[in-house]
Every structure is written in C-alpha cells, then in structure tokens.
C-alpha cells in the first residue's frame, strides 16, 4: 500500500520514478528519495530485525542517527553496511537488510572499491548544510575565504554562492590543526577528501532524543521530527492513525506537520502518562524526548560539554581548540526547552530499550549498576551501549541520563561517554584509495634493473628495493643457481649491482670530528684516499648500522649505509647536527642515486677491470685494500674502491647513475673471457657468511653490541665520546653470559631462527642457549654452515648444540665464525 501523499515532497521529483530492489523484491521510488523514504512509501514499516533479540524493527529516524534500518548495498556500488536513511535512491539500487552487522563477500566476489583521494586547503570548512552552516559558509566566503561546505545528506537546500558545496559527504574525523577527513559517495563516485582548514565550523545540528518506555523499539515508533521530515521532504506519510508523546513543544510542531500530510492525531501524550499504553490502536507513535546537539566531532577533538537544565541535555562548553567552532543548534541555539524525562517508570525494564542496535535495555543498565559499576564509561563497556556502528547517536545521552537517575545523582553528574572517529564505518579500501596492490608501498628499481629483467632475474624485496636474488640459467632452481654464482666468484669473477647501498656526502671543516661521534671507531685519522669500515650504535649501545667511510679530502667524506637504513642514517646525522651540535660546520647530502655501484669480485677481478679499460693503476702495491682511486673506465669518470664483502679481490666502481647501465654492460662484455657471472643477493649472503661478515638486521636484532659480534676492536677505547659509548659500560652490556656470534657446522642445513639447546633429549621446556641467525649450503666448503648467537659462544668452540625441530633434531658443532680463508689471503687476488 503506497503511503505517498500529495502534500510535501520538496526533495523528490514525482516525474522521475526509479526502481530498486530490497530484500529480493522490486519497488518504485522517486528521484530525491532516500532508501528509507522509499521503503516507507511502499508501506515497509517492519523490514528489519534486531541483532541479538531478533525483534522486528522499522525505520525510526530520517538521518544518520538511525539505529535500526541498516542495509548492505550491492548495486550499483558496494557498501557492507549503511543506514537506509543515508542512502540516496538511484535507479537499479539493490539493498538487503542487515541486522546491525555487516558481511564481507567471499574473497572471489569482493567488489572493487575505487576511491579517489584528494587533498584540499581552505580557510573555512563548514560541516553541516543546514541554516547555520550555510550562514557561516556565506559569511566566510564574503570575507574572501576559500570555503568548503560538506553535508552527509544528498541534498543541500539553497547552497550559498562562492562556496565549494559537497553534498553526500560525511566528515569522518576532525584531527589536530584543522585536518578533516571527509568521505564523498554517490552512485558514480567515491572520494576521500583530506581537508586542511584554517578554521573548522561544526554546524552539525541536533538530533531528537528518544525516551525509554516499554515496547519503544516496536516498528511504528518513530522520532517525531523524522515523521515530519518524511512528509515535508519526501511526501511520505509513515502512518495514518497517530499518537504523539512529547516532552517539549517541537513534538507538537512535528505532529502538526504529520497531520498536514493527512494523518489523524488520535492521542497527544505528555510526561506523566505512559506512552506504551498508546501503542495499541495506532499505526504510528511519534516520540520527542527533546533535542541533543550533535557533538560527535566536537568531542572527538577534546571539546568539552556542559549541562543545560533548559534543554535537559549537554551543550559544548567552548573549551576546545581555537580553530574549531560550533554554531547553530549544535551549539544549542534555537532548540526548544524540554522536561528532563528519560525513563517511563515501571516494575519491569526489560523492554525499555536504550540502545536498539545493541538490543540493550534499562534492565541491562540496572544490572551493570547492581554489579557495582558507577561510571558511564564502565557501563558502556559492560553493556556495549553506544559501541554499535550508529555510535550511540540515539542512546549516548539517554544512557548517561538513566545512569544518573538510577544512581540518584543529579542529571548533570555524568555526561555521555566519549566519541572517536570515524563517525560512520569506512572501508579500508577507501582509506587506501589508489595506494594498494603494487602501489601499496613504492617499488624502487636501480638503473640496471632493465638488464636484470632481461636476464630473468628472480628478485627479492630489500626495503622498498627490488634486488636480483639470483640469475637462473636454463631453468635452474635457486640452489644450483646460487651454487654456480658462488663458485664463479671464488674461482673466476662475479659482478653485483650494489647501487642500493645508501651513500651520504659529508663535508665541512668539522666533518671528521662529526663522524668520530657517529661511529665507534675513529674516522678523523683516516688518510685521504683511504676507506674505513665502521659501526654506528644506538644510544643503547646496540649495533644500528654499518658501512664504510671514504675520505675524499681533509674535510670531505663519502659514507655508505646498508640498503635498508639509508634514510634512517641520514635522518640521524641531521637530527644530531640540528638538535645537539648546531655548532659543527658539517653538511650532509644524500647521493644514493647519484652513483650506480658495480661491484666486481673474484680472483680474476683485476683482469676484468683491466679488460674494461682504465687509467687507474690496479697493482695491489699501488692500489691496496681499503683505498679508492678516481679515474676513467670505459671512457666514463669513475671512483673505484677496494672493499670486499666476499673475501675475494674486489673493486666497487661508482659511476654517474645516468651511465650506470652502460658501465654494467661494458663490464659484462669485457669480463666474458674471464667467465664473469652476474650474481644476486643470495650468493652475496652465502659468500659473506663463509667469511663471517655480519649483516646488520639479520645477524643483529637491536640487542647486539660490537663485542657480542667479536668486533670489540672496532670500538675505540680512549676517552673521546661517540653515540652509544656510555651504554656500552652498563652492567647489562658487560654481562659475561651475553649471546655471542659463533659459527656452526651442522650435520644438515639449519633453518634460520632455529633455537639451540644443550641436550638432544630431555624434559621440555629446556633452556635455550642461542639461535641461528644465518644459514646456507656452502658450495665452496661443500657443506652446510650457519652463524648463530649463542650464550658465552666464544668460550664454547668445539662444543655441540642441538636444534630440536619438527622433522627431527639437527646437531651442530660450535666453531669460530670465519669458515673460509681466515687469514684474508685472497683479498689481494
């Protein structure tokens, strides 16, 4: 039976019918309808169910405070759960009722959510398009402000000129310094706005208050102003035989509007008469318990409240951030005075509903108080009142008032519980916007990446970088590919794209003194042209990063960092320079991507470099280990450093990034007769582990000192200070039972992370003495090897430990961590 009437209907266009589906049935509505108004127009009074008690429920409001009428939208967009009162009706809309809880489709059926993101700056943002909001927006525009006005409804009447007006846009949250996130949704568009406003005006209006009486959740019970809205905006009469229960004058005005729509008002009930008695015999019971300013956003920013006896509710106390202002009925302006009536007295409160979406009644509040709770916040957590997705818009103030009343305290003793963003549910896909899939986090590629792809390299993620892990040939799996690459470097020559290493140019009269403070060893004694390996510690004395420093001049260094810590190290340099030592004359510049780094390693590395062609004298006597030379190679200006992470003779060639790929190809081609082999990070890891070189972040975990690694030599012992020095003298750093780096010779390959114990059998749990940090099948040694951190490890060489694992126990002998060429004879080739 249609409840559409000729009266009212200012928001609908009766010449534009639309069809939609609800709960499997097809219906008609008009352009301008909400889903809720169209359902009521089609006579659907009880189309919903309560989530816990399975009670029939109907549309109770005409706005965002709706506690009953929740739907899933599946066409033409997807929304897991939304109030029907806030859904703009569009042709072909498909909706199904949801009992307060959304449902995620199965992974395969997951609809695509494509939310655009947009940052915008304005001088004034107004939230709420009612009279007060429009006035505030118009005044700000007249002042010359850039003004944005958002309203969550699909229509803003008489929008002011000179203002960016966004209907269908919900302010989800207000954050520090006027940052507001707002969600715009229509049938054709979804957009998340990031608004930075100099001033935010909350014109969020007021919401009519509910009253707790027996059966107040039954379909046909509706807020009085909502019924008036359905008549005036949508031409829908929600009932014909109507009773009104009101504590204030606005209820009578709403009743007049409903009467103008053609209804008979058969009862007018005031405080002192039980409205539940009037439910039988009418098809619509209007309730007006007064008005609550809508202060969700105000309160989420820390805005305070004060109780108004006239309104029998809370108004903003204007103690909030200076850029945030509340106007209009949200500030209590123009709201009708109301009697303070929350609760219809009864013997049995089990059907006096307070939070309809949580199915919680006055009896539930009473039970929480009987259990000894006295705080509204505790009652909220005991009953879940206010925690459903309607955020307790109809129940928050009511629950607080009932707590006050049942405790016998004054009505102003406790206000409603706190409010937090987001104001309505929002999907993670919307928050992510375009930043998902491959764009979730940037993927960084080196200049040589196209060559790696041509060679079908298998990549691994190192921080944000894609680095070749290995280069399979002829369908090789990882193990044979890595073994082949390792042997090539040990026997001939290999080449690695090391461009991802962080590089920082450090220059200034105090550069050397500065680096002395940042590293545990001395950089100021390094001769120009030389290189020194160094450790950086945290303030806690634990190893934070490692790298080398090249001295380019008396006051000029180029330092490297690990791939993953490049930004952290530069930030740390800048932080200390700017906050602690502003007097030091030092400038730091990231040059990570200025240089492509081509590392050639192996006994034939010198032969390869010579074949590429260079004016640099490569003889070991004139170009020794841990020095660098500037010169030309294949016609390109280069800086060549003799450092080694493999233990073999090694040259790292730095070249202008724009020519990096050209140099790489020149090395590959000139090195072909020497059997040069491109290798990836996996072979690099194996080779460095054979030499016992640690990787910060793999063999260390933020709890490891240099001495734990057997590298006490890298920490200078004089009185000069460096970051972390003081912490190295703490009792904990000096314990004699600390875990220390050791090598392991296991009887089969250990998994990294395996825990090590002293006995192969015995009661569980048994004490753990260490863990495996690195583990590889060494092709060079033809056996599995591992690095581990083991309690008192350095004094236990020769002992046996066990790794009990689901597939059986692995036995491992503790050995020094250098497995290969312990005397370092191979580094000069």
């Amino acid at each position, binding site marked *: 039976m249609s409840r559409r009437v000729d009266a009212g209907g200012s928001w609908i266009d009766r010449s534009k019918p639309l069809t939609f589906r609800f709960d499997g049935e097809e219906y008609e509505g008009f352009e301008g309808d909400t889903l809720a108004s169209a359902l009521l127009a089609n006579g659907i009074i009880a189309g919903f169910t309560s989530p816990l008690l399975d009670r029939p429920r109907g549309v109770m409001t005409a706005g965002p405070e709706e506690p009953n009428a929740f739907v899933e939208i599946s066409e033409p967009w997807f929304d897991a759960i939304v109030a029907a009162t806030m859904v703009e009706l569009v042709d072909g809309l498909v909706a199904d009722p949801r009992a307060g809880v959304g449902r995620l489709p199965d992974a395969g059926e997951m609809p695509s959510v*494509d*939310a*655009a*993101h*947009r*940052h*915008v*700056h304005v001088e004034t943002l107004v939230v709420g398009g009612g009279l007060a909001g429009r006035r505030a927006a118009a005044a700000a525009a007249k002042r010359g402000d*850039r003004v944005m006005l958002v309203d969550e409804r699909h229509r803003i009447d008489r929008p002011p000129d000179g203002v960016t007006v966004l209907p269908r846009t919900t302010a989800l949250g207000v954050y520090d310094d006027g940052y507001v996130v707002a969600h715009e949704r229509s049938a054709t568009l979804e957009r998340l706005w*990031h608004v*930075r406003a100099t001033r935010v005006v909350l014109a969020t209006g007021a919401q009519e208050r509910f009253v707790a009486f027996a059966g107040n959740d039954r379909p046909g019970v509706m807020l009085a102003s909502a019924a008036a809205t359905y008549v005036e905006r949508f031409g829908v009469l929600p009932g014909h035989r109507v009773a009104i229960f009101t504590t204030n004058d606005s209820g009578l005005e709403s009743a007049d509007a409903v009467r103008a729509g053609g209804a008979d008002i058969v009862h007018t009930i005031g405080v002192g008469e039980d409205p539940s008695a009037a439910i039988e015999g009418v098809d619509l019971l209007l309730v007006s318990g007064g008005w609550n300013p809508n202060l969700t956003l105000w309160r989420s920013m820390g805005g305070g409240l004060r109780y108004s006896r006239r309104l029998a509710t809370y108004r903003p106390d204007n103690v909030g951030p200076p850029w945030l202002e509340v106007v209009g009925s949200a500030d209590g302006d123009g709201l009708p005075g109301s009697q303070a009536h929350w609760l219809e007295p009864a013997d049995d409160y089990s059907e006096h509903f307070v939070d309809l979406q949580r199915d919680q009644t006055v009896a539930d509040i009473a039970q929480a108080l009987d259990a000894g709770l006295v705080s509204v916040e505790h009652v909220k957590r005991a009953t879940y009142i206010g925690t459903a997705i309607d955020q307790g818009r109809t129940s928050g103030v009511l629950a607080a008032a009932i707590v006050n009343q049942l405790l016998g305290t004054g009505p102003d003793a406790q206000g409603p519980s706190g409010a937090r963003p987001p104001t309505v549910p929002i999907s993670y896909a919307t928050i992510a*916007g*375009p*930043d998902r899939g*491959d*764009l979730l*986090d*940037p*993927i*960084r*590629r*080196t*200049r040589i990446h196209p060559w790696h792809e041509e060679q079908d390299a298998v990549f691994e993620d190192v921080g*944000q*970088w894609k680095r070749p892990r290995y280069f399979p040939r002829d369908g090789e799996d990882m193990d044979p590919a890595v073994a082949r690459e390792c042997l090539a470097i040990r026997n001939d020559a290999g080449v690695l794209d090391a461009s991802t290493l962080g590089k920082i*140019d450090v*220059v*200034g*009269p105090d550069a050397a003194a500065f680096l002395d403070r940042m590293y545990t060893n001395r950089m100021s004694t390094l001769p120009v042209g030389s290189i020194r390996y160094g450790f950086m510690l945290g303030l806690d004395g634990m190893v934070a990063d490692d790298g080398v420093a090249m001295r380019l001049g008396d006051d000029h260094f180029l330092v490297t960092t690990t791939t993953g810590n490049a930004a952290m190290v530069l930030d740390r340099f800048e932080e200390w320079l700017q906050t602690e030592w502003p007097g030091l*004359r030092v*400038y730091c*510049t*990231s*040059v*990570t*991507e*200025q*240089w492509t780094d081509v590392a050639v390693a192996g006994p034939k590395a010198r032969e390869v470099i010579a074949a590429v062609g260079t004016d640099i004298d490569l003889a070991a006597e004139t170009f020794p280990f841990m020095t660098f030379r500037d010169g030309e190679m294949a016609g390109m200006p280069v800086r060549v450093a003799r450092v080694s992470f493999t233990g073999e003779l090694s040259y790292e060639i730095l070249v*202008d*990034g*724009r020519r990096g790929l050209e140099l790489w190809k020149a090395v590959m081609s000139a090195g072909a007769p020497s059997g040069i082999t491109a290798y990836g990070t996996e072979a690099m890891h194996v080779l460095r582990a054979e030499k016992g070189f640690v990787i910060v972040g793999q063999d260390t975990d933020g709890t490891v000192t240099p001495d734990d690694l057997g590298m006490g030599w890298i920490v200078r012992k004089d009185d000069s200070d460096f970051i972390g020095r003081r912490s190295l003298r703490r009792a904990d750093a000096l314990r004699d039972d600390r875990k220390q780096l050791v090598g392991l010779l296991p009887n089969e390959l250990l998994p990294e992370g395996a825990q090590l114990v002293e006995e192969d059998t015995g009661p569980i749990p048994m004490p753990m003495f260490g863990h495996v940090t690195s583990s590889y099948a060494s092709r060079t040694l033809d056996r599995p090897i591992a690095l581990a951190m083991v309690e008192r490890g350095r004094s236990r060489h020769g002992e046996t430990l066990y790794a009990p694992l689901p597939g059986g126990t692995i036995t491992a002998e503790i050995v020094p961590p250098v497995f290969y060429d312990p005397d370092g004879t191979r580094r000069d080739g």
Partner: protein
Amino acid sequence: MGPDVTAEQLVAAELAQIGVRADPAVLPFEQPQPNTVTTWKGRDVLWLGPDEWLVVGEADSEGSIERELQDALAGQPHSVVDVSANRIAFDLADSLDLLASGCGLDLDPSRWVPGMCAQSLFGGAQVILHQLDERTTRVFVRPSFADYFIDRLGAANRLI
C-alpha cells in the same frame, strides 16, 4: 574515470642539478624567499631550506655550475654536490589536480603560483615541485621511484 597519463602530459627533462648548502650570507646568487625560485645566470635556484638550495641548469652544465659555485664559496664552510643523477625531472602539464591526489601541499592555483617550489611527498615518493608557468609543474623524483611515480599518477588519473 580518466585514461592513463599521456606522453604529452608527462615529459622527462634532462637537467644539471647542483645541491648547495652554506651560510646564506655568502651565496653568489640572490637568496630566494622560502619556497620560491630565483634565477642566477640563466639557472633556476630553488629554495629547499634555510641553508639549502638546488641550482638547476641545462643538461651537461653541471661541471661548470659546480666549478663556479666552488670558486665563489671557497674559504667558507659549504657543500656543493653534483646531484644531477640523484633525481630525474618530469614536466607535467595541467596536473595539479592529479598531484593533489597524493600530495598534502596547498596546490590551489590561487596560492600555488609560477615561481614557487616545495619539497613534499607524492604518495610514497619524495618529490620536489617547481611550478614553471601557469600550466607546467616540474617534479623532481629519485630515479628509483620514477616507475612508481608514473604508475601512481596513472592510478590517480583513472580515479579522478
């Protein structure tokens, strides 16, 4: 839903780039106001910070710019570093709305006007923006982020 960003909209620029750090009192060029660009001998000088500037010249001029600056600042604490390969530059046409999909700066044409520059983020990539004229925004981005930058622009363009 718009198309991918077109080649006309996105042009890679070959440039010389020299980073300069020094006491502002000893600069050989007129010090730009914060977040603006001045010119020096036909080169752009971008303000990056209170003691940090980026001098941008035509391709292959990095050697001469570096020498001129080193000579001018000799004897003063300073840093002059060739960073021509450290970032690549894209000249984007009519793309402030696209950039506003992933950049929190105020890019409203009434406030973000030709001659302004700023360091910021676009999505997850560090960028330096320089508004060349009414239509063209020059975006400096690390080469390793270039593919990401273009893909992120395209994603924004498809959603806008």
